[in-house]
């Protein structure tokens, strides 16, 4: 039920994001979703890609520091209140969200929410109990 996300350390200087995306493109790696958390000095880029191991290898070969984390991908219908329902369920269970980001899949019907929870296992159990669709690695990579 967990999806692998890669994290890349970036100094806050121009062109670094372009460098990374170019490296991934040159290696035919597809970015499914991304988000950046940043400070004045540096940023942490988080990526969901279709070929995780290959992405890590090529980024490391190009001098980037790469870490990996497990995240949860929840699929909801792309309409008003979709995210709110998920968050209310998590809030009621007393679980904190460390961070999240979202993307809309190709058909445009569903949105995919990427979550990092404070308590991952508990969050998954709660979401499943409430009937939310949790995507597997394979489902995400092949979207």
């Amino acid at each position, binding site marked *: 039920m967990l999806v692998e*996300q890669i*994290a890349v*350390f*970036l*100094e806050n200087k121009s062109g670094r994001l372009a460098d990374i995306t170019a490296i991934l493109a040159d290696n035919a790696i597809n970015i499914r979703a991304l988000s950046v*958390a940043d*400070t004045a*000095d*540096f940023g*942490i880029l*988080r990526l969901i890609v279709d070929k995780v191991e290959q992405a890590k290898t090529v980024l490391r070969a190009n*001098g*980037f*520091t*790469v*870490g990996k*984390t497990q995240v949860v991908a929840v699929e909801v219908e792309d309409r008003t209140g979709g995210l709110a329902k998920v968050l209310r369920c998590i809030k009621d269970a007393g679980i904190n969200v*460390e*961070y999240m980001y979202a993307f809309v899949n190709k058909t445009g019907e569903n949105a995919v929410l990427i979550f*990092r929870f404070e308590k991952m296992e508990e969050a998954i159990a709660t979401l499943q109990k409430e009937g939310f669709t949790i995507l597997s690695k394979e489902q995400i990579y092949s979207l």
Partner: protein
Amino acid sequence: MYWQRELECMDRAELERLQLQRLVATLKRVATNVPFYRKKFQELQLNPDQLGSLEGLRDYPFTTKQDLRDNYPYGLFAVPLRDVVRVHASSGTTGSSTVVGYTRQDIVTWSDLVARILTGAGVTANDVIQIAFGYGLFTGGFGLHYGAERVGASVIPISSGNTKRQIKIMQDFKTTALVCTPSYALKMADVMMDLGVNPNGLSLRYGLFGAEPWSEAMRQEINARLGIRATDNYGLSEVMGPGVAGECQECNGLHISEDHFYIEILDPDTLEPVPPGEVGELVITTLTKEAFPVIRYRTRDLTRLMPEPCPCGRTFVRMSRMLGRSDDMLIIKGVNVFPTQIESVLFDIEGTEPHYRLVVERENNEDKLTVLVEVVESLLFDEMKKQKALIEHIKKRLASELGVGVEIKLVEERSLERFNGKADRVIDRRQL
């Protein structure tokens, strides 16, 4: 103005006779009382009684800061602890600090030596002297304090910090002489400006500055901004503390109290004497210290001698202001910092050989040390909260290890230049 005219202006030939006599006595004493020296002398088959000239000291082994650390805390004391009336320790780390001791007579000697530099700088019994050096294990505060009392000046033992209060007291108590680091003097000038205090309205006339490297340009700035005459003085706790050398009112080089210290200027690589007047490492042998004598102590400070006579009449040789270090030690806000200390903390946290760079700057007349750390996988988090917590953790660990605050800047892996051989990890941007 002299404190001990007959000594400070003594004939050079007579001085050398006195030095040799005291040197033999010191060598004999450490050979008898300090196992560390006894063993070294025996290994080299050195007999202090056979020392026929001052140059003969060149056969004797050096003493380094590492030797002092290895003998922590009392291993190099030459008298029993019951004869020790004071203990100081060098600034820097807690784990590897170096401890020095003083007998009652050492304190008297020390007070006189500091009285010499105070008098040389113009201070008399009529002065009100504000000592803004830290009091404590650091030798600066107490060293100047005892010397100033010896001169008979009115001493304000305010210690360091709280700049506004320093200025208030300076105004209210009509301070005439200020003792602190040169960068702190400039900081005081800045704060005076902020507070709208006109330095010309103060009673301040003299400043005695030391404990960190500075330049002639900085002296001119201090003189102009505070309306005083600033003099430089030099000392280090391993040898005595302040009072080893100080400028007279010529403000052109520091007279070394040669009746108490025998100095050599050596090439730091070959350890051979440099030609007179050339830059080399200052190596000091104490001639009168009782509790903590040191033989050929490598200060790692670079200077050059100024052998020509000084118009002030003192015969003690002068040395230039400190021109740098022969190792990679940094002095940050008066605290000694070694890159290896930073390296070991980072190693501890990262679990691997760290790649880092130290950047030293001076902002608003205060030293600022920034450690650039390359982010390896063990230091990378996907959550910003954890990433920031790591930075705080490194900061705290370094601050407690070094005794001075630092800034941390994370940089990308392999972004710092790699070196072959001795890494030059320090970028010093201080414009002194």
